[in-house]
């Protein structure tokens, strides 16, 4: 059973009269209890994908396709019903915990707010519960920190707070959007371990978005690679046997982290993608057909799909 | 959106400039021609906007008034920019004690109720058109100084300035050749915005009877006269105000347009 299934998701924005295709027809699913990794360069549409799963994208020009959460089409829900899913069923952890927390309210205030939103609890009970959650995510001196403002805490602490907030309503799907990107190395490891731990404890499904392929290799069952608003490759053991030249290029970058300009040439403009395969201008293996016909996602191996006219069998 | 602002703003200002330039051709009468037989006659075919309390043609006076207002806007703002940019750039570039001192001065000036400052200065200088412009300039440079200082501070820290400095360029040269051109867009916006403000200030002074001297027709002083005959001559208080409104609107639209354009460019 899939906890989440996305079919032909398109998210376009309108800017200065031009259409920006942030996400252009992607489909994927997440099984119950599974962790799916989502990787790609900046601007490839990862975050927009994550946000559109609960219709969080603001002022889209077009938002189409289907997002089925436990069979319910999120896009068809009334906003009141949708709010019951947000936070309670699908929770998010964002990049930059400091800016993702409201600077003018205390940690406790913000936690109690959402606890009381999704549970019938008195203020007092909510506070006790918030304390418990903070302790659970390993925040020392939880009582004091509950009364702190985000700017008084370190980045790692704030991320723990974010996680505590995310967990506080027992969601079944956690979407972590680059949760460790701006943290220092040791904190990164701690946060990742924390996520891994709570995933197990709470039996969560996870959508993990990151630049860092190493993390995906360690923490996720399956990985999807996005390029120019589309998924170019998705499957298990992607890293052992990538088929798409783009994935291969990513993997061959030394650190394993997708650099800003990870490849030769520039990422295409989202206002005007190249015809044919969107990767062809940068592809070392391109042929004439690549410039004309758009490749579709095809199952290359069981559970392993690739969108490429000439999928390479490449071993890293 | 910004295009439309710029277009409508510059259209209004353009028309006003034309009206000001060709006022002698467009005016149906000599704006100072007194006619005691036709005191305060309502709008009619002979006098489209009516006459004032000395029987002068209101339309002609408003047309000539355009000259005063536009001139006041440009010159007053020129003066304000001159002072504001000089002090702002000095404070921003030198920083340290000079900066603190200059900014304290700016603070003091800002704490004055501006209008009171204006009144005292009007008393200090004789109210010729130039002096009015000077006074408005002298009392409105503080905002410019603050903006320029902030911009200079941020530009100063950029890599390329450090590089130029390392190459041994002199301070004067750095400020005038490298920093100020980068501040120019915001100066432009502030300047145009202030022009509207300066025109408002001039008309307010004239409305209180402290502005330009008769018989120079100023919209504010026509309004002042209009207030005293409000109950019998509505045209005296309605038409000059429309002229002020349109002019200031023109400048404000233009400034807003340029500002949003600059933001979207960067």
């Amino acid at each position, binding site marked *: 059973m899939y906890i989440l299934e996305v079919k032909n998701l398109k998210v376009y924005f309108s800017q200065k009269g031009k259409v920006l295709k942030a996400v252009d027809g992607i489909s994927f699913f997440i099984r119950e209890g599974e962790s799916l990794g989502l990787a790609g360069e900046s601007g490839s549409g990862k975050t927009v994908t994550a946000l559109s799963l609960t219709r969080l994208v603001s002022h889209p020009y077009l938002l189409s396709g289907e997002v089925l959460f436990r069979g319910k089409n999120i896009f068809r829900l009334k906003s009141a019903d949708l709010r019951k899913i947000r936070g309670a069923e699908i929770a998010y952890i964002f990049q930059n915990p400091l800016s993702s927390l409201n600077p003018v309210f205390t940690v406790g205030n913000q936690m109690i707010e959402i606890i009381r939103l999704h549970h019938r609890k008195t203020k007092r009970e909510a506070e006790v519960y918030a304390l418990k959650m903070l302790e659970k995510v390993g925040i020392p001196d939880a009582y004091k920190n509950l009364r702190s403002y985000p700017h008084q805490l370190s980045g790692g602490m704030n991320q723990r707070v974010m996680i505590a907030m995310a967990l506080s309503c027992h969601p079944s799907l956690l979407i972590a959007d680059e949760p460790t990107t701006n943290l220092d190395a040791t904190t990164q490891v701690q946060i990742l371990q924390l996520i891994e731990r709570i995933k197990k404890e709470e039996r969560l499904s996870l959508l993990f978005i990151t630049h860092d392929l190493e993390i995906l290799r360690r923490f996720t069952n399956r990985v999807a690679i996005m390029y120019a608003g589309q998924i170019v490759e998705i499957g298990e053991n992607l890293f052992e046997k990538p088929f798409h030249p783009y994935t291969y290029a990513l993997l061959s970058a030394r650190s394993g982290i997708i650099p800003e300009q990870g490849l030769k040439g520039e990422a295409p403009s989202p206002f005007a993608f190249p015809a044919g395969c969107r990767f062809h201008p940068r592809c070392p293996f391109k042929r004439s057909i690549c410039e004309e016909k758009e490749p579709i996602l095809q199952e290359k191996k069981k559970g392993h799909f690739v969108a490429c006219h000439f999928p390479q069998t490449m071993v890293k | 959106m910004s295009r439309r602002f710029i277009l409508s703003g510059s259209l209004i200002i353009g028309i006003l400039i034309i009206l000001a330039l060709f006022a002698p051709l467009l005016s149906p009468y000599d704006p*100072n021609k007194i006619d005691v037989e036709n005191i*305060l006659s309502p709008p009619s075919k002979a006098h489209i906007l009516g006459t004032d309390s000395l029987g002068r043609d209101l339309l002609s006076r408003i047309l000539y008034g355009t000259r005063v207002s536009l001139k006041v806007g440009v010159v007053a703002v020129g003066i304000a920019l001159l002072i504001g940019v000089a002090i702002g750039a000095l404070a921003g570039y030198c920083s340290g004690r000079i900066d603190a001192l200059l900014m304290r001065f700016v603070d003091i000036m800002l704490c004055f109720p501006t209008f009171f400052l204006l009144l005292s200065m009007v008393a200090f200088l*004789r109210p010729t058109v130039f002096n009015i412009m000077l006074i408005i300039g002298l009392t409105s440079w503080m905002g410019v100084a603050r903006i320029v200082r902030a911009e200079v501070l941020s530009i100063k820290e950029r890599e390329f300035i450090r590089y130029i400095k390392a190459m041994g360029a002199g301070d004067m040269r750095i400020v005038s050749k490298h920093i100020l051109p980068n501040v120019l867009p915001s100066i432009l916006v502030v300047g145009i915005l202030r022009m509207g403000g300066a025109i408002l200030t001039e008309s307010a002074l004239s409305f209180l009877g*402290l502005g330009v*001297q*008769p018989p120079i027709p100023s919209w504010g002083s026509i309004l002042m006269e209009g207030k005293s005959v409000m109950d019998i001559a509505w045209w005296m208080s309605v038409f000059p105000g429309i002229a002020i409104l349109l002019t200031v609107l023109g400048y404000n639209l233009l400034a807003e347009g340029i500002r949003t354009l600059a933001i979207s460019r960067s």
Partner: protein
Amino acid sequence: MRADFWRKKRFVKLRGLVRRPLIFFILSLFLLFPSFFLYAQEDNQPCYGDAIIVGSIGEPITLVPILAADSASQDIVGLVFNGLLKYDKDINLVGDLAEDWEVSEDGLVITFYLRKGVKWQDGVPFTAEDVLFTYKKLVDPHTKTPYSGDFERIKKFEVIDDYTIKITYKQPFSPALASWTMPIMPSHLLKNEEDFKHFARHPVGTGPYRFIKWETGSKIVLEAYDEYFQGRPYIDRYIYYIIPDQSTLFLELKNRNLDYISLTPLQYQRQTNTEFFKKNFRKYRYLSFGYTYIGWNLNNPKFKDKRVRQAINYAIDKEEIIKGVLLGLGRVCTGPFVPNSWAYNPAVKPAEYNPEKARQLLALAGWKKKDKEGILLKGNERFEFTLLTNQGNVSRRKCAEIIQQKLREIGIKMHIKIVEWGCLLDLIERREFEAVLLGWGLSRDPDCYDIFHSSKTGPREFNFVSYKNKEVDRLLEEGRRVFSQSKRKEIYQKVHKLIYEDQPYTFLYVPDALPIIDARFRGIEPTINGIGYNFIKWWVPKDKQRFKR
């Protein structure tokens, strides 16, 4: 709304009667005839009661008579206090607090015999002590009074007894009598008050009205003084409303909330000719005691030449100014005296508007050529000057603009500079002016020594145009020495003629005073002294009274 307030009250009563028409009819039959006689009688017979509501733009500054210099203060002071002397309806000096007075043969000593039995409004008798006290305060260097001048000429002030005063002057000084119209203040109340602080807002006088209260920024209320020595005034209360805005003042009059205001020429000519106003108000129009003029700085080489000043007099069309500024409500001024003064010389005829004559005179004075702009030239000098006037006076501003036009027509370029009053005084004091457009408010005494005598050209003195004419000097001195009015009349009529001939000022106009008063008031008799002189005799017929006690 406020008008409705009154109207409603009256309507309620009427409606009550109308509802029972029969009773009303019978009642009126009974009442009609006796009441007819009663009313007819009452129409001629003054009766007590009612209040008059006066609207004013300005608020009094102080009610201390020797400090009060503005017209609002003087309005109130005049009702609360008396001087030793006053002017009657024909502008003759008559006794007020003084019953009689004597001037010694040599004119040096004036003896006042004070009225007996006059009581201050707090019941204390009025005596010579009060006059002495007022005099002392006037010449006390710590008193900030503007009126000390006339009293500093006193050599000796003797109190002979409680009701006799002998005042000895350093020289004969005929305006002295006029100076004793100065209101007298109560010694017993002020002896121990240092700076009049309390008194300034709670005055006690001998006058027809007692001070009741002053609500700052709003109104002053006076009440008839029952024991006033000239008889209690008919109108019970005098309420002085301060409404610092001309249009609101007029609006309130229109709503019949005010009984008495001064109209502007525009209001007089254009806004009060309706049936409504004719029915409910009476408009009065009489010449005021003051004139508007251009003063030329006679030290300026341009204006030193009499012919230039005369030319300008010919070039300015005073009738046009009176039409444009006063809407016809005024008279051409021909000299330092107004037509209703006994010093006025009717033989002096105003110069006609004659630009041609003006050009000729200017040519004689050397202003022959014109430059490209059409401005007259004398050598390389353009005929260009600046006329100063004060800010906040619309008529003067308009006046200046008309003059500007007229002078431009004969080739003189005049600039107008409008500065605030304080600034103007400063410029005049420092003689930094070429010409000023100003007005003089005149006292009833024609003595104008301070304005035209050549000895009065010092920094803060009033002959600021530096006018010097030996003959005029002599006449002005004589006018001060002589006490006989007929002799003085002769002297001042000569002064009038000489000054108009010399044109140190270009005399422009004497404006009309334009009061409007609710029609219910009776006993108002305009004379050359205006209407205010007999205010205590004004009254309202019983049936027309609006305010009951």
